[in-house]
């Protein structure tokens, strides 16, 4: 397992290197536009050329990329072209906000998905149909609509929860909880529906297998068969969806962050791309790629741990 993990980490690092170079190469086509936008109405050929020299954009691409890479290897991701914030600190701060929403949402989604999926698969009949109906609603109700409705009820009318903003856990756990309740609820609805469908399908497959019939004939309680055997064996596909859902939630967090004015990873990425903040975009490319690789690796290790037959190492 260790050699598998090391191999995957090695491949991941190469992938990160390739990703960052492609990102930098693509950005290089916009260097002049970025400088021009930064100067606004003061942009003249002379001022654009001067700022390009000031920022080092006049040098060969490989020299610029090599310098960036060297600095990154020494822990220096540079500073934002626009705000002058150190990139690594800014990315970690935004990552913390998004994880504060995504992780609880993922946990709630997973727990409710397991309950719904197992319930639907083991009961079948009307219970299954009702549960599938709930999943369909979760799939198709737009998160944005739910978000707006919850804000109107709980923030504007009742005043129980803040309509916008984020309080770090370290500052005030109570206010932190208040600031993430609605965003987490909104993200959990779609996430639970996606994972529950997968759990239900896998559980139905498992419950039809011969070993389940054998266990039943030996008098093992149904509850034990479902939770100790079938659920464990069906967890592989669900875990794959779980890892994809984690990454999808990061993607969809942008909308939630905009609606709730959360200073998270999605908004930061979006705004940085809009203004062409090259050091920040490069930093986000590194962290985004590493996060994807880590989540996929953990999912593979988790699947192997749950079901030795499914091990890819």
């Amino acid at each position, binding site marked *: 397992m260790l050699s598998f993990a090391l191999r995957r980490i090695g491949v991941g690092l190469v992938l990160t290197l390739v990703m960052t170079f492609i990102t930098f190469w693509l950005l290089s086509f916009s260097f002049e536009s970025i400088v021009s936008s930064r100067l606004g109405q003061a942009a003249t050929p002379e001022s654009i050329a001067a700022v390009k020299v000031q920022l080092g954009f006049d040098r060969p691409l490989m020299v610029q990329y090599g310098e960036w890479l060297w600095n990154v290897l020494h822990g220096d991701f540079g500073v934002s072209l626009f*705000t002058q914030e150190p990139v690594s600190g800014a990315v970690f701060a935004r990552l913390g906000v998004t994880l504060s929403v995504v992780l609880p949402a993922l946990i709630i989604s997973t727990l409710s998905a397991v309950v719904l999926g197992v319930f639907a698969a083991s009961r079948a009949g009307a219970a299954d149909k009702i549960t599938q109906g709930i999943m369909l609603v979760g799939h198709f109700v737009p998160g944005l609509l739910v978000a707006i409705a919850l804000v109107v009820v709980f923030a504007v009318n009742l005043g129980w929860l*803040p309509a916008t903003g984020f309080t770090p856990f370290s500052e005030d756990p109570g206010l932190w909880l208040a600031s993430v309740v609605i965003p987490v609820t909104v993200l959990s609805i779609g996430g639970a529906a996606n994972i529950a469908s997968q759990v239900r399908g896998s559980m139905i497959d498992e419950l039809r297998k011969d070993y389940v019939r054998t266990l039943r004939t030996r008098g093992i309680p149904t509850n034990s068969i479902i939770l100790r055997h079938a659920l464990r064996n069906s967890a592989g596909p669900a875990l794959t969806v779980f890892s994809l859902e984690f990454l999808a939630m990061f993607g969809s967090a942008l909308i939630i962050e905009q609606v709730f004015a959360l200073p998270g990873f999605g908004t930061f990425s979006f705004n940085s791309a809009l203004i062409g903040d090259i050091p920040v975009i490069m930093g986000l490319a590194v962290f985004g790629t590493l996060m994807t690789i880590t989540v996929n690796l953990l999912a593979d290790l988790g699947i192997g741990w749950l079901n030795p037959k499914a091990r890819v190492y």
Partner: protein
Amino acid sequence: MQQNKTIGTFSRRQVVAGMLATTAFALTACSPKGGAASRVAKKQDLSISIMQQPGSLDPVALSEGSDSFLWSSIYDTLLLTSAEGKIVPNAAKSFDYSKDGKTLTLTLREGLLFSNGKVPTSKDVKFSLERIKTTPGPGQFQALNIASVDAPDDATVVIKLTTPDPNLLRYLTARCGIISDAATARDASTKLNPVGSGPYTLDTAKTTAGATYVLKRRDDYWGAATFPFANVTLKVMADTTAVENALRSGQIDVSTIAPTSQESFKKQNFTFTKLDVTSVFQLLIADRAGTIQPALADLRVRKAINMAFDRDAIGKSALAGLGTPTSQLFFPFFPGSVKKLDSLYPHDPEGARKLLAEAGYANGFDVKMPSLVYTPTFEPLITQALADIGIRVTWNPIPPQETSKAITSASYPMILWVDGVSPGATIINSHFTPKGYLNPFHVEDPRLAPLVAESAITIDPDRQAAIYEKINTFAVENAWDAPLAFNGQLFAAAPGYKYVGTSPMNLSSLRVFAVAA
């Protein structure tokens, strides 16, 4: 059956009880934040929203717009735009032009103090002006005509110009007029937490970059009495729905709102202020010499374009009732505006089609326009109005960071554009000079050029107004562009607060907020 009544090792009742307990904890932890109640307690504080994270606070890199809320609170400027929009003394207690308009003498007021305890002198002003002039950046053009800056004594600043500059006083109310501390301005800390002589300092302990910026009033500021709020919080909110929800729930105290939301805010006893003109919505006919679209060189075609639009309907619907129809670019409260020009081109698609036919374009023509970050909402309206007279528009999507390049590249004969409120000299400079930012095809006209040249060196207000009016009249009568409507803004203030700004020149200053009686 047993499995029907248990989930794992817990009974169903235990699970339900657990869920209820968790919900109860969540709700009790979330203490009520009702708007009105909490507002009474924090009357000394003000919270407002800003559209985007402010950029660097280094004076040579400052952006205007909503960033100004932050930097205009930290830095003092030599001059000031009053709530009524007039240029008045500020850190400079007086200012005086020489007769030839090439020397401006300013006298600094007593009582100025940097946040590090040092007293600003004319040497700091000299340093600041020279630095902005020699450092490439968004504000560099404002110091373009400055030849030299002298500091004969600690309180006197003498600015010598290469040519009279009608814009200079206005620039000295903005980033060009900032007094930096010469000893610390080049420090890295200037970009994030600078030394300034303004009414507030940044409370870095309570500030979260990208989310919340907290300003703390300086009691040692010479004009502290004009700033009623001891603490001001700027919250970054890009989404208008989030802004209105924050306003309703008491997280912010004053904001612009959509007119359609006004009724619901009335129920919460908000007060409202409407500024009728804060920008001008226009169709730039950039290729008026017909370089890439020959049709646009014909005055009849440009007039037809102007006649294609129902400006009343645009003001009422597309601009949500905040639009005032116009055919001119000059703002009504600045010299150069000519009232009768507002209605020079009534909506007349039939007449427009006739003009196009007379010009040899009975079958219309095709035109390519850039689809910019703010244009998609208006694109169907523009496409339809022009299609009605036979002009077929294709919109090319432009990534936001390419906006500036798209405008200046001379690739688009027409551009949908919004000018923020600007005095006549700025409009002339950007639209009508050959090197103007909004004149990408560098079009000149022998009838206009002498007027533009004279306006650039005239500082006598009466003479200046007369020249501006001639330029404006020429531009409208020759349909150089197709201005459509002035756009306004509606402000809503929560009980206990009021919006006191009366001029759009002061939109991003804390001076426009006050405590309600």
